[in-house]
């Protein structure tokens, strides 16, 4: 059937495909309500190219726990000969990702993932992995989903948020048919077109279902329209349809034949009626809506029987008996408890191995529904596995409940080691859930039980937890003592995970008071965690080292750990931590005087929709301070946004840096009163917390605004030295810390020669506000050889170009081709093209040569 009103979409896809054929991969999200024609559109489009290009097609299932990599199974054999076997084994996801990536890089192709609103997490991870690298894969990746089925917490939303901002991604939202479209479908049938359009909302599937039957009156809903097709079917054909509906959206012919026995040949009647269709070597319903409508007509008794027949056939086939998710699903629907307990836990393990923790948790939950009949220890083991998965998907309420139940059961079978171990894990869940007191009690109980028995890894974990609790309560030496006990036990019993945890606690405990000692322990933790593949632990240790080094003004060290961590996380798509690291990196760059990089890192963070507000904080503060020094008015807005975010949690560590930044911004503006109001509270708090750097900075701003703050010997030296008038010593300290701006700020307090040096440093950094103030002061004292104030045209780039565009323009000036620029900046030629056209547009010029010529004569570029 010809598609109506879909030509513009086809044309859009054709344009995109042309870009793909030219070598740059693209991703297209096709969305719309059920029945709007997503699949029809893609079938029509791929039909035009299937002779010349490979088309890989996979569909997601509406099963309650879809199996990991569901749609990938459909295309696996076509992609790579080893892939089906890899998928069947418990391979690491990264291994599968790499094979898929390698296969897709071989040749231009169209790859379709249908109905990704039902995708399992492993598939979503794969899509994110491919989406990130799409520019370098010569494929057109088409993803369809029902946009009206995405709840705010839907896991697909995160993937969408991640990928839609990419320049290689586009969205097609399918619109309903217009009244004219409906009229064309109705043709000369005696139907009121206006009425039909209104009742169906222009949904093409609904309309075709209605038109497929002789009409007396328009059915009220799509289900009635679908079921009208079956009114004329023979009872045996109906029986076949029922069996097919229970099998699922995709129906293996052999399976349907086994379940329907002597009536199997009535399949032809179902196909002639346009309800089932063949799809490769299998069958499928005409539409998922058709499938659902039939499934809903089955009586509970008939459902039970059919699911049992399907289950029997599936488990006797060597291929299908490996799909544990599917077996568990049918076993549950067949009311077959024993089979649920046989298949669901294995399916859960497989899902967990594929990092599909949400699916794993629901499969364990399913098994637990029937676990009361199991021996108590088997039941307890299931509860532990469920608690583990629930923790990974951050369902701490479930984790806590199942740990408590497991403790009860282990107690009943008199297994104190297991009881203690579960108490230890319960401690951690309670702590994450914000129940500190309960956690404390629970931890003590664990130690009490475990200490009565020969020590093992369980006791190591319990000691480590107690260490963590002591560390939180700032009992640092007690915490260190316990953490060392935990390290010794974990080492003795060879448990890498608990050993890494113990070193993490030990190191983090020391970090703020003795950074070098703490970082030694954390480096050991990194080493152990990396060897054991404990990726999340590695990432958080990098974040810890980087952010604490940054808080302690050890910016070179911070930069080292932050970039290492960013690379580590980027290679593994560990986004949450990566964004936090990037945010801290913006802060580090700000102090190190690498201001251009601050802007780039901060803008990436601030513009990204999926980054949590907490992770934005350091980037906002860094950019805010920098804009204040540049004399940009947006500084205040940025810092107010930061303050808003920081105020939510009311943590000193969050709010204090924002207040300090606001004080600097106010002082630079010449508003001492506001600076004082920002800094007074900060000073008292920082002094009470004995925070050397924040107290030092607070004292510094109080002093700058004419106050005489009390100083302590534990306060950060560079600040107190400057307050004491020792500007040279302060400047030397700042130089040692690699903080050029702060160094110049100290020099600005010095003699004329020092001030001239400070002026040069400010100008080089682009700190216009303090530079102007300093120049004015020098002129008043009639100092000679004051550097001329640069014309504003050399300070601010004249055409509103971004930093990246300035960089590209300066390469154009050097006569580099777009290809060379792309290679130089490690960006795609297409992105370079984009930038060059944007530059030309902003400069109002027509050619790159003109742009280069103008830039050569312009002071902004000539002084670069």
């Amino acid at each position, binding site marked *: 059937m010809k598609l109506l009103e879909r030509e513009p979409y086809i044309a859009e896809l054709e344009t995109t495909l042309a870009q793909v054929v030219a070598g740059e991969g693209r991703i297209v999200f096709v969305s719309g309500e059920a029945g709007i024609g997503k699949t029809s559109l893609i079938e029509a489009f791929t039909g035009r190219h299937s002779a010349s290009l490979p088309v890989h097609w996979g569909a997601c299932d509406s099963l309650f726990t879809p199996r990991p990599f569901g749609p990938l199974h459909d295309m696996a054999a076509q992609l790579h000969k080893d892939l089906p076997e890899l998928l069947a084994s418990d391979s690491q996801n990264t291994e599968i990702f790499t094979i898929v990536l390698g296969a897709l890089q071989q040749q231009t192709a169209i790859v379709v993932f249908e109905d990704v609103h039902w995708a399992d997490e492993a598939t979503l991870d794969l899509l994110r992995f491919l989406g990130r690298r799409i520019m370098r894969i010569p494929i057109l990746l088409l993803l369809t989903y029902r946009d009206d089925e995405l709840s705010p917490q839907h896991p697909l939303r995160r993937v969408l948020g991640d990928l839609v901002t990419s320049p290689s991604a586009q969205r097609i939202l399918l619109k309903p048919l217009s009244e004219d479209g409906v009229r064309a479908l109705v043709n000369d049938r005696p139907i009121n077109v206006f009425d039909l359009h209104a009742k169906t909302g222009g949904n093409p599937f609904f309309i075709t279902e209605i038109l497929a039957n002789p009409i007396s009156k328009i059915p009220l809903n799509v289900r009635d329209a679908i079921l009208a097709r079956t009114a004329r079917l023979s*009872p045996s054909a109906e029986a076949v349809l029922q069996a097919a509906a229970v099998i699922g959206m995709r129906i293996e012919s052999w399976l349907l034949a086994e379940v329907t026995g002597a*009536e199997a040949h009535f399949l032809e009647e179902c196909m002639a009626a346009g309800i089932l269709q063949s799809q490769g070597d299998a069958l499928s319903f005409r539409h998922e809506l058709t499938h659902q409508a039939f499934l809903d007509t089955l009586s509970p008794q008939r459902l039970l029987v059919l699911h049992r027949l399907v289950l029997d056939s599936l488990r006797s086939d060597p291929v299908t008996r490996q799909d544990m998710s599917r077996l568990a699903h049918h076993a549950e629907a067949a009311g077959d408890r024993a089979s649920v307990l046989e298949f669901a836990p294995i399916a859960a393990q497989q899902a967990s191995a594929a990092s599909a923790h949400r699916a794993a948790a629901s499969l364990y939950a399913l098994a637990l529904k029937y676990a009361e009949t199991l021996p108590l220890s088997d039941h307890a083991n299931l509860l532990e596995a469920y608690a583990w998965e629930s923790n990974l998907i951050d369902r701490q309420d479930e984790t806590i409940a199942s740990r408590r139940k497991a403790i009860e059961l282990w107690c009943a079978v008199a297994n104190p080691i297991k009881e203690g171990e579960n108490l230890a894990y319960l401690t951690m869940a309670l702590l994450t859930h914000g129940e500190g007191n309960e956690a404390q009690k629970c931890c003590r109980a664990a130690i009490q039980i475990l200490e009565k028995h020969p020590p093992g890894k369980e006791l190591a974990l319990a000691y480590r937890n107690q260490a963590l609790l002591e560390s939180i309560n700032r009992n640092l030496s007690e915490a260190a003592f316990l953490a060392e006990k935990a390290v010794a036990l974990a080492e003795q019993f060879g448990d890498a995970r608990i050993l890494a945890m113990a070193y993490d606690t030990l190191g983090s405990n020391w970090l703020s008071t003795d950074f070098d000692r703490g970082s030694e322990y954390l480096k050991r933790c990194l080493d152990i965690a990396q060897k054991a593949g404990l990726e999340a632990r590695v990432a958080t240790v990098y974040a810890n080292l980087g952010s604490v080094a940054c808080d302690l003004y050890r910016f070179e060290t911070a930069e080292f750990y932050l970039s290492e961590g960013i690379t580590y996380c980027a290679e593994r798509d560990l986004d949450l931590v990566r964004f936090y690291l990037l945010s801290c990196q913006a802060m580090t760059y700000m102090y190190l005087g690498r201001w251009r990089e601050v802007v780039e890192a901060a803008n990436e963070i601030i513009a990204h929709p999926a980054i949590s507000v907490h992770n934005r904080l350091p980037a906002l503060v860094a950019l805010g301070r920098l804009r204040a020094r540049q004399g940009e008015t947006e500084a205040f807005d940025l810092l107010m946004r930061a303050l808003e975010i920081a105020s939510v949690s009311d943590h000193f560590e969050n709010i204090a840096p924002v207040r300090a930044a606001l004080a600097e911004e106010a002082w630079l503006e010449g508003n001492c009163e506001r600076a004082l109001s920002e800094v007074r509270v900060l000073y008292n708090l920082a002094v009470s917390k004995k925070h050397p750097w924040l107290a030092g900075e607070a004292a510094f701003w109080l002093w700058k605004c004419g106050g005489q703050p009390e100083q302590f010997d534990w306060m950060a030296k560079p600040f107190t030295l400057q307050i004491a008038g020792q500007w040279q010593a302060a400047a030397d300290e700042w130089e040692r810390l690699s903080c050029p701006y702060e160094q110049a700020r100290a020099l600005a307090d010095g003699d004329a020669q020092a001030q001239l040096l400070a002026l040069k440093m400010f100008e080089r950094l682009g700190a216009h506000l303090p530079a102007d103030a300093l120049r004015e002061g020098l002129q008043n004292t009639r100092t000679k050889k004051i550097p001329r104030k640069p014309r504003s045209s050399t300070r601010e780039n004249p055409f509103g170009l971004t930093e990246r565009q300035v960089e590209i323009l300066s390469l154009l000036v050097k006569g580099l081709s777009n290809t060379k620029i792309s290679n130089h900046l490690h960006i795609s030629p297409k992105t370079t093209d984009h930038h060059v056209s944007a530059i030309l547009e902003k400069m109002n010029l027509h050619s790159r040569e003109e742009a280069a010529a103008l830039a050569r004569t312009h002071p902004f570029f000539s002084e670069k």
Partner: protein
Amino acid sequence: MQRYLVERTFNLEGDPGVPGPDDSLQKHLDFAENNSLNGVTWVQSYISLDNRKSFCIYDAPSPEAIRSASSRNGLPVDRITEVSVLTTIVQFPLDKDFAGVLRTGHKNSE
């Protein structure tokens, strides 16, 4: 006429839903009539010890005929499978051409 095995699963009370010794003659006759209207002849039935499942042998012109008759009689149908009688012929001394299992259709065996 073909021979069929019909699998049935009964509701949770385990009531096979067929007329028993306590039912009226009329009910027995109605049951037989609904079968014969569709050309279906009941041969024999086996029932699981919990009365939940039955395995019934019928002679019928088509599986559809069995489905209609069952529907008229209010009997559930899980699956209908066409079957034939399994005949084992063993010759002594064992001749490899004739040994083993020979399958003959129900029709042929009549």
